[in-house]
């Protein structure tokens, strides 16, 4: 195989996507923090699929066209850090192929080099032991200065093997991986894509390749996640037909029959997704009337986190924005991980809110769309999660020319709340960005989340079933219940009478529990102000800020 054609490249990309899909759960499970919100695999898959969806069918005649289309789709679909780095890798890779009708070994080797270079440029401070190290190993293996082969398949095989070796080495480069006993999730995603593409090029047995991918990841850990997570199925489902009411809720058992529920709900609504186990199941469906689905579910167990959105209204609003809101000189768009936060951000002055965050990272396109919906001539984005910042920044770079997009790189939801409170539509963009950045930095953010496996992170031993306390992004402690984890985290961050604590409760807590904790905080530190607010965030009973 001396060259590859447009058709071959097209097929290889499809096979790469299929292989990534088979390893998505594995990548999700490779979470440094032992909490059930791993979504690296999902982010990479959704990003990659955005590229595949852009490919013409049947494939274009010209290799350059396939490459350009794929890279463009990937750019706009990029979500999460891993998705962004992946999109940049393929942007570099495809740029090298764009002038070509077919590609030889030297072209592919050069493309790997450009891909790795672009991936490094995508991140402000490159960290080894991540997808970047895997990409650079691939580039090194295919150096055009050492043309060990003229066969494209051989070159690709060596790239795939090198990627696997680099992946296995990631825990030696990044201590948090070693502590958590995992390899880098993003790196695994890239290995899976390269493996799939190799299989696609050569027509070999994908099962053998799957085994190699799993081995490079140190074995199959995808069963580790035991709590139901909002996953890509929700995203896929919610992007299809938009009519009636998008209805989501959590049912708590005991004795739920997930498969039976799926079948029963299929007769009630569309786009039905049920994930979970016999204790807890998360349900998503679209129905003209949300009532029957809720009545059905309440016969099975207790309901919580009920979210019902009128998609007809959304369509009106989104499809014809000029009919609903006049253009504003300056607007803010925030990412909100729950219905409470969505309401809070809207009330505090956000013209548009993107639902998502830790478990559903918005794509570059999501940001650009929301900026358009916000009707601002200038738009400030609040990503509110460290894994979402890069997609927002890419949206700002690649904005469509009609709106000028800026980013205040908030890395937590409480930071986003502080930033939006500092927003003043009567002031200039520059003054607002300064004020919002300052406000975001003036607080400490705390996140409490359930641990789903035993782990040691940053010297803290965590047992499955405990709750961990993350302060400003660092896992600091574990405790046996969520309330204790919160109280210990607040104490570790330091409380004094002149401070304000804002407590946002979500999945796994209640207004009453949160208020009880607030009273305890006020008893322990007389004079301190504690505000309790419903955030509705998944996976985390409490988010909090101290300012």
């Amino acid at each position, binding site marked *: 195989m001396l060259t590859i054609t447009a058709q071959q490249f097209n097929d290889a990309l499809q096979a790469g996507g299929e292989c990534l899909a088979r390893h998505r759960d594995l990548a999700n499970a490779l979470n440094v923090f032992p909490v059930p919100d791993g979504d690296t695999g999902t982010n990479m898959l959704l990003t990659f699929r955005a590229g595949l969806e852009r490919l013409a069918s049947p494939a274009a005649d010209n290799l350059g066209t396939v490459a350009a289309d794929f890279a463009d789709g990937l750019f706009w679909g990029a979500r999460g850090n891993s998705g962004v780095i992946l999109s940049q890798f393929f942007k570099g890779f495809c740029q090298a192929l764009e002038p070509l009708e077919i590609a030889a070994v030297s072209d592919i080797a050069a493309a790997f080099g450009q891909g790795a270079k672009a991936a490094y440029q995508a991140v402000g401070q490159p960290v080894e032991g991540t997808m970047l190290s895997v990409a650079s190993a691939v580039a090194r293996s295919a150096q055009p200065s050492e043309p060990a082969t003229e066969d494209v398949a051989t070159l690709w095989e060596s790239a795939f093997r090198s990627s696997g070796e680099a992946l296995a080495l990631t825990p030696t480069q990044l201590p948090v991986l070693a502590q958590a006993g995992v390899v880098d999730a993003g790196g695994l995603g890239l290995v899976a894509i390269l493996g799939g593409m190799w299989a696609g090029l050569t027509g070999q047995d994908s099962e053998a390749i799957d085994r190699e991918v799993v081995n490079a990841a140190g074995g199959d850990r995808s069963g580790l996640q035991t709590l139901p997570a909002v996953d890509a199925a929700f995203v896929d489902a919610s992007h299809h037909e938009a009519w009636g009411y998008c209805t989501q809720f959590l049912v708590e058992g005991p004795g739920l029959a997930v498969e039976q529920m799926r079948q029963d709900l299929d007769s009630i609504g569309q786009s039905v997704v049920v994930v979970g186990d016999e204790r807890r199941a998360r349900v998503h469906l679209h129905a003209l009337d949300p009532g029957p689905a809720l009545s059905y579910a309440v016969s099975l167990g207790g309901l919580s986190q009920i979210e019902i959105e009128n998609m007809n209204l959304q369509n009106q609003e989104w499809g014809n924005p000029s009919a609903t809101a006049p253009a504003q000189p300056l607007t803010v768009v925030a990412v909100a991980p729950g219905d409470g936060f969505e309401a809070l951000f809207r*009330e505090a002055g956000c013209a548009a809110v993107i639902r998502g965050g830790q478990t559903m990272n918005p794509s570059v396109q999501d940001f650009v769309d929301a900026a358009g919906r916000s009707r601002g001539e200038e738009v400030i984005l609040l990503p509110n999660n460290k894994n979402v910042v890069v997609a927002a920044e890419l949206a700002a770079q690649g904005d469509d020319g009609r709106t000028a997009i800026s980013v205040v790189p908030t890395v937590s939801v409480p930071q986003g709340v502080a930033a939006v409170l*500092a927003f*003043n539509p009567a002031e200039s963009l520059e003054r607002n960005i300064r004020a919002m950045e300052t406000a975001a930095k003036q607080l400490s953010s705390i996140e409490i989340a359930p641990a789903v496996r035993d782990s040691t992170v940053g010297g803290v031993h965590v047992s499955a079933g405990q709750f961990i306390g993350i302060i400003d992004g660092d896992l600091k402690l574990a405790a046996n219940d969520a309330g204790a984890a919160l109280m210990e985290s607040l104490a570790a961050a330091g409380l004094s009478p002149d401070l304000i604590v*804002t407590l946002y409760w979500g999945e796994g807590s209640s207004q009453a529990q949160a208020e009880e904790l607030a009273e305890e905080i006020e008893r322990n530190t007389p004079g301190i102000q504690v*505000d309790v607010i419903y955030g509705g965030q998944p996976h985390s009973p409490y988010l909090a800020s101290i300012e």
Partner: protein
Amino acid sequence: MAIRVVTDSASDLPADLAAALDVTVIPCNVVIQDVNYKDGVDIHPDEFYQRLLAGPGLPTTSQPSVADFQTCYQGLLDQGHQILSIHVSGKLSGTMNSAERAKEALGNPDSIELVDSQLASLGLGLAVIAAAEEAAQSEDLPGLAGRVRAGLDNIRCFIALDTLEYLQKGGRIGKAQAFLGSMLSVKPILTLQDGEVHPVERPRNAQRALQRLGELAREGGPATRMGIIYSTDPQRAEQLKNQCADLAPEDRIVDARFGPVLGTYVGPGAVAVMLTQG
């Protein structure tokens, strides 16, 4: 011909200071449960805030009548004075309108100059004090009116509210609309710009609002005159004054209280600093 300064009760100018400066203050009207009161004449702050909090319903306000202005102007003209009449922003109140009609009714004499301050409360009050001091030494009415208008840009107002409810229900919220919301308790800081209420910041509690008022006041540098004013909580005014005391000479700091007209819109717990700077 000597110049006399006229203003309205939305200036919140303390009565003793107005008397000392020979300033005539025309009262605006406050209506509480269908009874009309003349601001500062029939009703004073203590009683007003008690009734504001007790309800039921919220007070409303109205500008002085054309006749009120005409009577006042005629009296001063009869005494042989020229008149410089400086009033609350025409975007917040119809007071300027009454003054204009009264001047017309008197045949638009050159001896009456009207100034829309684009300000309210002690911001207007500071402009009136400066005008009255100069009026005592000047007979050049157009010249003085010009200097007063030019000086309005140097007056800055920062007010912290406990709630935007009164401003909103009173229909004067303007661009501070953007700060409405009840999920998070905030103590909004507002200013006056182009004659309207403008949003500034949203501190999370009263203590931080006071601190920010002090810092915002300081951003404009030393003041030639400063006013500290409150609605119901004198301790907040005291604290704010301590923070800002070094910004202006002690004898040029005015302590005042939001009267019933302003109180209708700022509500309880409001505190503000107003300065002549630059």
